[in-house]
C-alpha cells in the first residue's frame, strides 16, 4: 500500500499524536539529569522538582514585598492587555475590511493605504508609541492594535470582495440598500472568517504583547520572563513559557468552538 493511502486510526493515532511530545519531554529530562549530575548548581536545564518549587513560589505564595501572587497578577495584566488589543483590532479590522471590500468608493482610498500600512514593522513603531502614548497601558495595547489590525483588515477586505457578485445583485433585487446589504449579507458572512483570522494572528498578538512588556512594564508575563533572565532563573522562565503556550492554545481552542457554535453554516451546516 502506498504511504499516502495509509491513515492512522484509533490507538495508533493517539500514539502518533503523543509521541513527539513524549520524545521532547524525555530529551529534556535526560539532558537535565545529565547536567545536574555533573554540576548540581547548574541553572540551564532545571529539574522538574526545581521548576515545581519555582511554580509554587510564583503562583501560590505571596510576594513578601507586594503581597501579590506574581503568576496570577502577571497573567491578569497580560490577558487584559491582550484582550483589549484583540478586541479593538477586531472591531477596527472588521470595519475597515468590510467597508474597503464592499463599497468601491471607500475601497479606492483605503485599500492601497492598508497595504502600505501593513508593511510598517510594528516593533519599529514601538518607540513612537512610547513617545506618543507614554509608558502606560495604552502604548502596549496600541502595539497589538497597530500590529494586527492591517492583517485582519486586508484579509477581511479580500473575503468581502470574494463574496460572489451574484449574491450582492440578488440582495438588491430583494430591496436591500447599501446599509442593509452590509448588515444582513456581508457582515454575517465575514464574522466566521474574522474568528479564523483572530486564531491566525493570536501568535503575533502574543509576540507584540511580550515585546512591549519586556521593554517597559512593571507586571505581565513578558515582563517577568525578562526580569528573572538577569538571574538565569530558567526554573521560572520555562514554566512561564509553558503557561503562555497553554493560554494561547486555550484561546485558540475557545475561538474555534465559538466559530463552530455560532456559524454552523460555515462549518458544513451541521448544527
Amino acid at each position, binding site marked *: 500500500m502506498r504511504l499516502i493511502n495509509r491513515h492512522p486510526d484509533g490507538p495508533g493515532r493517539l500514539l502518533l499524536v503523543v509521541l513527539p511530545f513524549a520524545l521532547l519531554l524525555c530529551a529534556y529530562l535526560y539532558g537535565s539529569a545529565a547536567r545536574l549530575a555533573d554540576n548540581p548548581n547548574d541553572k540551564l536545564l532545571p529539574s522538574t522538582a526545581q521548576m515545581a518549587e519555582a511554580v509554587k513560589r510564583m503562583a501560590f505564595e505571596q510576594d513578601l514585598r507586594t503581597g501579590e501572587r506574581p503568576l496570577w497578577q502577571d497573567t491578569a495584566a497580560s490577558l487584559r492587555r491582550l484582550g483589549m488589543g484583540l478586541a479593538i483590532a477586531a472591531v477596527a479590522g472588521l470595519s475597515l475590511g468590510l467597508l474597503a471590500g464592499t463599497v468601491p468608493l471607500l475601497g479606492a482610498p483605503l485599500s492601497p493605504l492598508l497595504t502600505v500600512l501593513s508593511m510598517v514593522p510594528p516593533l519599529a513603531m514601538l518607540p513612537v508609541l512610547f513617545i506618543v502614548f507614554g509608558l502606560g497601558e495604552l502604548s502596549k495595547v496600541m502595539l497589538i492594535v497597530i500590529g494586527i489590525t492591517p492583517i485582519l483588515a486586508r484579509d477581511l477586505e479580500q473575503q468581502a470582495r470574494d463574496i460572489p457578485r451574484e449574491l450582492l445583485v440578488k440582495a*438588491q*433585487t*430583494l*430591496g*436591500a*440598500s447599501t446599509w442593509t446589504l452590509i448588515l444582513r*449579507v456581508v457582515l454575517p458572512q465575514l464574522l466566521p472568517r474574522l474568528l479564523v483570522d483572530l486564531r491566525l494572528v493570536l501568535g503575533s498578538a502574543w509576540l507584540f504583547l511580550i515585546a512591549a512588556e519586556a521593554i517597559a512594564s512593571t507586571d505581565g508575563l513578558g515582563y517577568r520572563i525578562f526580569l528573572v533572565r538577569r538571574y538565569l532563573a530558567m526554573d521560572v522562565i520555562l514554566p512561564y513559557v509553558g503557561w503562555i503556550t497553554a493560554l494561547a492554545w486555550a484561546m485558540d481552542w475557545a475561538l474555534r468552538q465559538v466559530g463552530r457554535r455560532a*456559524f454552523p*453554516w460555515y462549518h458544513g451546516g451541521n448544527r
Partner: protein
Amino acid sequence: MSLIDVHNLWQRYGEHTVLEQVNLSVAEGEFCVLVGASGCGKSTFLRLLLGQERPSQGHIMLGGQPLPGEPDPGRGVVFQRYSVFPHLNVLDNVTLGLELQASHWWGRLLGAARRRAADQAAALLERVGLGQALAKYPSQLSGGMQQRLAIAQALVMKPRVLLLDEPFGALDPGTRKDMHVLLLELWREHPLTVFMVTHDLNEGFSLATRLLVFDKTRHDPHAPHAYGARVTYDIPLNSERRAFQAALAQPPGELAGCVHIA
C-alpha cells in the same frame, strides 16, 4: 400595451461590441426564452434588463418609464449559481426579502411582524416543494432544491419581471423536467413576465411563448469583435398558453371577451 420596450440597444466593452441594434417589444405576461451561441450576448442582455449594467447606446423602457439604473425589487433574478445566501437557512433566505423591504434601517423584523413574514415565506416554500427543509442551510440542499429556493426567494417579492440566467444549467435532466413543470405553474399563478437565458433549445421550445435567438449577422474575420449580436429570430410559440396568459393580463372588464375569443 407592451411592458418592456428596447430601442436600438448597443453594448460595447472597449473595442468589443457585444450587442448591436437590438429592438424588442415584450407584452406583460410573456415567457421569453433567449438562446444563442456562447458569448453572443444573451446574458449581457439579461444584465441590462436587470440594471446591473447600463447600455452603451439606446434605452430600455419598463412600463413606459426608463429602466432604473440598478437592480431593484421590481425585477427578480435567479442565477445558475450563487443565488441563495449561504449563511441563512431556507426559511430565512425567503423571509429576508420581506424583512429588507419592511425594515429600511435594520433589515430585520421582530415579533409578530417577523412571524407574519415567516408564515408567508413558509407558505411559498411549501408551494415550491421545500416545506420539509425550512431549517436547512443551502449547503445541505441538492442543486435542484437550491434553485427551488432561489425561485421562491425571487417570487416572494412579487416582481413584475423574473430574469433567469441559465437557472437549470447545472441540474440533471430529471430534475430539470420537474423544474420546468414548477416554473410553468408559478408563471401561470403569478402575473409574471419571464426572461430566461438557456443553452438548451428543447428547454426553450417547451417553455417559451416567445423564443428570441441572438446571433451575429455581420462578421469580419480580421476583427472578430467588431460586430455584435442582434435578435435574429423572434418566434412565437405555444400559442394556446400565450392566449391564456394574455387573457389573465387583461383588466377584468375585458376578460370575458378575450376568453371567448381564446
